[in-house]
Structure formats: C-alpha cells, structure tokens
C-alpha cells in the first residue's frame, strides 16, 4: 500500500508600501519592517482558501482546480506574522505555488504579494525553517536599530546618573 504523499508550502503575505508620494528610509531593517506587516482581520483562513480556489480555477480551469483541491488545506495562518502553511498533493505542488504567485488580492484586501518561501515534505521541518528564518530577520532588524536602542540606554543611564548626583547633593 502506497502512502499518500503530500507537500507543505510555507508562504508569507508581504505588503509593499503603496503610497508613491512618501519617501521612506532605505536602511535594511526599515525595508524589512515596511514589507512585513500584520494582516487585517479580513484576511482569514477561510478567505485565503477561497482566494486560492478562485485563482486555481481562473488560471488552470476546472481540470487544474479539481486536481489540486482533492487535498488542499490551510494548516496554519497567523494574522500577527502574516505567515501560513498550506498542505497539498505532491504532484500538484507546482500548480498550487503558481496559483499563489498569480494572486493579487485576498477577499477585498488588495496591494499584497503572496510570497511562497519554502516547500517541504514534513510539517515539522517547515515549522523549524519558519522559526529559523524569522529569527534571522529579527536579528537583521535588531542589528540595524542597535544604535537607536543603545541611545535610549545611554539616555536612561544619564538620567540615572543625574538622579544619583542629585541625591548625593541632597
């Protein structure tokens, strides 16, 4: 008996800054921060699955969408981090990624990119990958804003010193 083989796709939703007239800072951390945002409440699990189905039937027709949707589940989606995991058939993995790539909106929310990041055979590995990737990105942002954080610390230290000095004089 052959096991049912599936693939897990890790994806994230990016929100590129839309307003053309506003100039933004160009540092690495700020670019990352401006793209990775929390998703609004309208982007729910149900809406995403619906949109994937719609994109599948629009781009691949009845045949493609029926082929893919035999095993198509959204295993996980978090609005806070805008990342999710999709489970699909091993043979139809490419078609699902293609459908994700060709999506330009979810429900009524436009101005987003659905960005497939990684494909893996087990959900455990994909979770580990997601954790590693997010900590890497966090580190980048932290490195970039380090001098700011340090500045705050310096200020705090100075304030404390001043307070101590005042106490001493009292």
């Amino acid at each position: 008996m052959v096991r049912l083989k599936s693939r897990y796709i890790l994806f994230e939703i990016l929100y590129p800054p839309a307003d053309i007239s506003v100039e933004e800072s160009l540092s690495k951390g700020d670019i990352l921060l401006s793209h990775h945002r929390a998703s609004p409440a309208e982007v729910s699990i149900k809406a995403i699955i619906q949109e994937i189905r719609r994109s599948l039937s629009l781009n691949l027709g009845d045949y493609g969408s029926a082929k893919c949707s035999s095993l198509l589940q959204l295993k996980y989606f978090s609005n806070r981090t805008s990342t999710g995991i999709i489970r699909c058939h091993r043979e139809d993995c490419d078609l699902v990624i293609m459908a994700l790539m060709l999506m330009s909106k979810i429900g009524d929310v436009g101005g987003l990119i659905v960005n497939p990041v990684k494909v893996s055979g087990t959900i455990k590995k994909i979770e580990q990958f997601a954790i590693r990737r997010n900590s890497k990105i966090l580190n980048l942002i932290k490195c970039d804003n380090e001098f700011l954080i340090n500045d705050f610390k310096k200020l705090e230290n100075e304030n404390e010193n001043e307070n101590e000095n005042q106490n001493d004089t009292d």
Partner: protein
Amino acid sequence: MCKLKRYQRQRLRAKRIRMLVDLNVPWPQNSYADKVTPQAINNLTKTLTTLHTLGYTHIAINFTVNHSEKFPNDAKMLNPIDIKTRFGELMAQTGLKLYSRITLIIDDPSKGQSLSKISQAFDIVAALPISEKGLTLSTTNLDIDLLTFQYGSRLPTFLKHKSICSCVNRGVKLEIVYGYALRDVQARRQFVSNVRSVIRSSRFRGIVIGSGAMSPLECRNILGVTSLIKNLGLPSDKCSKAMGDLASLVLLNGRLRNKSHKQTIVAGGGDEDDNDVVNDVQGIDDTRTIKVVKRTMDPEQLGHAAKRRKP
C-alpha cells in the same frame, strides 16, 4: 584529493546560488525627450526595495527606446539613468548591485543607427523586434546581449528554430518577462502562448527570466516564477539557472564588451583582491586601483559551445 575537489565544487555551487538576478526593471521614460518625475523615481525605488526583500541581489534598470529615434550627441546625455547619484544610497545601504540596460525597439532596420556609441553608455544592450525584418536583423548581425519580445501582444512572426538557435549559439540570450502574466487576462493569455513558442524555438537553451515590474506589486520571488515557467514547459534545472547563472553571464558579457580586451582581460577599478568581475560593486571604470582579471574558462558555463569547438 577527490574530497577536496568535491568540497571546492560545492563551495562554488553555493556561491552561485546566492546570486539572484533580475534583468528587467523598467525605467519610467519612453524616449529621451520624456521628463522623469520624482514620483516615478520614488516608485522605482520602492520596486527595487521590494525586489531586495524577495532576495534579489543584482538588478538591471531597463530604458526602452525606439531604434529609429535620434540619440543625443552628447555622450553624457546618452544614459539618463544616473545610477550613482540616484540610487547610490540604496546600493550602499542594502548591498544591491544595480546595472543599466537599454532596450531598442526595432521596427524598420533601414532607419536604425549604429549601436557602437550607445553600447558604450550602458551595461547591457537588448533588442525588441516588433516586425519580421527587425527580428532577422537582431538575430543575425546586431551586437546585442539579449533578445526580448513584447509578451503582452502577438509575436512579430513565427519563431524558427534555425534563426533563434543560431542567435543563442552566438551568445545572445532570450528573455522571458513574467510581469505580463500578472496584469490582465488578455496579456496573460498571450504571455502563455508566446513563452511556449520562445521555449520551443530555442530548444530550452539560453533563456533568462526578468520581471518587468512596473510597481512593487508585480515582483515575485524565485520559487513562484520557477513554478510558473516550469508549468509552461521549461525543464526545472534550466528555470533555476535562468535567474542565476545565465543572467549573470549576460551581465558579465555586457560589461566586458566595453571594458575588456577580446572579452578575456580587464584592467582597472574595484578592490584589489576581488577577482570577480560580476560581483564587484564599484564597477570596472573606476580608476582608483588597477585590477587585471583574466576571465576563466568554465566548461560548465560554456557548456554546449565548448563541446562543439573541440577538434
């Protein structure tokens, strides 16, 4: 010994994978007479930052102009994309490497001008034929690095194996622009059929992929693009090469055209111990330090051509 070699090969491969090239980000100007608004520049900068977030490392900004249009006489006016002053900060902050590219729309070959002057000013020269005569000219004797088409509308003519393959053997690469697949239904339909005929006529050889993203929303990462092109009939190994190796070869070819002797030896510019011409940030024309680089013959990159030349 064998282990060492394998290790070296692995390191080489790892180095190659890290490069991700987008050869086509449109410049907001359709001719030399057009004005560039600060808003358009801002939009372009945002597109570049989005591409950076998606993991791209090398990006070429594409200025499309009609071949019959009069080029300015002043050498400084030839290249309106002032990369250093406009995007210098972006390049320094993010480590992106930006290049300039010109695409000539070729309609009637009799009205065309010589390319020698224009190819001095840009890193890459591409041709976009919109008629049968234009296609014949650009596949036979035009000195270009890239051949591209308008994927949103019908191809000028039926593409023949013979002309396209001879063009690829000459070292010219074919470009697929996936931005058209994301615009509207009509453009997408045409895109699919055009890409299929390009892939068929080139026999899977010498294909590179660019985005052609007008706005940040039209950028996609390598995983999505490869699965799209794979579904259109290109083998998957060629897909991943199309955005890495082959595209960087185009960058290398274009830069060596002006700044090397017979495409093998480069003198000038860059860091002293950095022998990698494609990867250096400063560009070859900086006269700060003198660098002599000999281009290595990598049989893997030469591939088909190297085999054929064997006596």
